[in-house]
């Protein structure tokens, strides 16, 4: 009989055992207890602008289809024919009226209903099509973010996101009055455990060390903006494993401080926009182009990270796929969106000036953490001066590991099977 690892022995309030990155049994437990019993982000509303649009993606290791049916409703369904299990769609995205299994031709509607079975008389009345739709998951949406869950008993998405919602709303101000749309993505893998990446999203401490080369490549004004480790930013625990790291407090609310001087690197864009837009709107657009001053980490797989979505997908215990999804203004000025793309390319992705160095650091954590046994990973930075806000949120300085501690608290809740259920409320 297999003996499962005991998660309670692996994670403490201020440290974790190094084996959390490399124990395959623990990984299997995570794929079940975390990725099948929480809300997992699958798409942004703009990925499915019209009826008939679909994308294929994954929830943990399960291939799924996200579709918008004729009535405009979004469905998330397992990408698995009910007959013999073949995937029914291998396109990354597209527009369709139905999904037809390539093996025996079973055809499913956009809502997953089984519509057609070739040569059905061969079942001599023993196949009731209404019993064999694609398996549908629970789907809910908040401010354009579409999440799904295998677990029909967990709390509502609204309750799960809870105190993160005002931050999501702030993040979406990057539309500068237009809706947010996705504009392509950088996708890459690194040879390491998914939690190494999860931790990184609220790790300001690494920025001036790992990203020296990025900082070398920008002007001094931008260098000052990114010089936040000893600044007045903070990290705050938002509950349910979620956290926010505010690096640049001036850029939390993009609708504020519009009178602030336009940074030099945006002046040319501002001059161009001034030909078509009034001054206040130019300022609003330019501020939006620069992105938000915070990273919002939504446990377990999404981050609203300054100016893009970071999506992680565990592939194996020591292999993780990361997507950096570019976003822009849907209907906004083309020039501004192009500048966003260039900024994204500059830092993000496998050939950016930032991501490869992050990836190197994560790779090194994975390899180094295999050394020895029973040696802790430290999670205690900023604990000594961590305090509580009136609403109960724990917070500490910007370089604190408060966000990681928040994630591991939820990890432990999930892994020990004590997922907070709807009936328990918050």
């Amino acid at each position, binding site marked *: 009989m297999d003996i499962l690892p005991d998660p309670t022995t692996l994670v403490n309030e201020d440290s974790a055992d190094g084996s959390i990155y490399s124990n395959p049994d623990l990984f299997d437990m995570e794929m079940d207890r975390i990725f099948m019993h929480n809300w997992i982000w699958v798409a942004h509303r703009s990925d499915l602008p019209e009826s008939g649009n679909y994308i294929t993606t994954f929830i943990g290791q399960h291939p799924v289809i996200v579709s918008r049916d004729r009535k405009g409703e979004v469905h998330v369904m397992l990408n698995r024919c009910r007959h013999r299990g073949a995937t029914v769609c291998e396109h990354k995205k597209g527009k369709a009226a139905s999904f037809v299994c390539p093996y025996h031709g079973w055809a499913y509607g956009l809502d997953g209903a089984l519509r057609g079975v070739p040569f059905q008389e061969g079942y001599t009345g023993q196949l009731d099509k209404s019993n064999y739709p694609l398996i549908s998951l629970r789907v809910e949406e908040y401010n354009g973010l579409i999440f799904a869950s295998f677990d029909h008993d967990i709390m509502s998405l609204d309750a799960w996101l809870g105190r993160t919602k005002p931050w999501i709303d702030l993040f979406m101000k990057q539309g500068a009055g237009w809706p947010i749309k996705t504009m392509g993505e950088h996708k890459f893998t690194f040879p390491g455990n998914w939690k190494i990446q999860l931790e990184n999203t609220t790790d300001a401490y690494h920025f001036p060390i790992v990203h020296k080369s990025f900082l070398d490549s920008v002007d001094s004004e931008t260098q000052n903006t990114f010089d936040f480790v000893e600044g007045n930013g903070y990290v705050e625990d938002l509950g349910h494993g979620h956290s926010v790291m505010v690096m640049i407090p001036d850029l939390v609310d993009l609708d504020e401080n519009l009178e602030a001087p336009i940074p030099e690197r945006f002046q040319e864009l501002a001059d161009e926009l001034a030909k078509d837009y009034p001054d206040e709107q130019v300022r609003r657009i330019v501020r939006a182009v620069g992105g938000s001053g915070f990273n919002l980490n939504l446990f377990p797989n999404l981050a609203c990270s300054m100016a893009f979505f970071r999506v992680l997908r565990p592939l194996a215990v020591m292999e993780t796929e990361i997507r950096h999804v570019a976003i822009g203004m849907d209907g906004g000025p083309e020039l501004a969106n192009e500048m966003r793309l260039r900024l994204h390319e500059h830092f993000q992705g496998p*050939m950016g000036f930032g991501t*490869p160095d992050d990836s190197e650091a994560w790779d090194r954590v994975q390899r180094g953490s295999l050394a020895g046994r029973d040696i802790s990973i430290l999670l205690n930075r900023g604990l000594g001066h961590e305090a509580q806000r009136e609403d109960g949120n724990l917070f500490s300085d910007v370089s604190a590991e408060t966000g990681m501690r928040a994630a591991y608290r939820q990890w432990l809740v999930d892994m020990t099977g004590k997922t907070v259920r709807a009936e328990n409320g918050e």
Partner: protein
Amino acid sequence: MSITLNEAIEMITLEADMLDHGDFKEWLSLYTPNGIYVVPIDPDTEEFEKTLNYAYDNAEMREKRVERLLSGRAISAAPPAKTVRLQARYRMLESNAESCTLRCAQMLTELRQGRERYYSANVTFRLVRTDGVLKIDRKIVRLLTSTEALTAVSYIL
């Protein structure tokens, strides 16, 4: 006289050799001032400025990329990966006295920290003749796996 296939191959082979041997500063001089080095994601697009790319480098960004490779301050490039690239299957798509467009296949092997990785690509060059010398005006590296997940590429494809 139109630019010949041999002239064009000589030029891009020089570029490939420089990149594999770390002659990055010299590499910069192979481009025209308005030259673009682009590694697109979308296999069909020609409108690179309107779409997300892995790299979309004008002269300023190329210089920064070279600085990053040489500075020793980027942990993923300290030292940069070693690479060996082979180009073949050359085809001149069009050519005249001032410019030409050449397409070829490129197979690149990367070695870094004990790991070998491979990237295949179709590469299209637009070369222009200025003052009797061929320069690269556009290099488009269309990776076979551009829409798949890559790994960190801290070097120049």
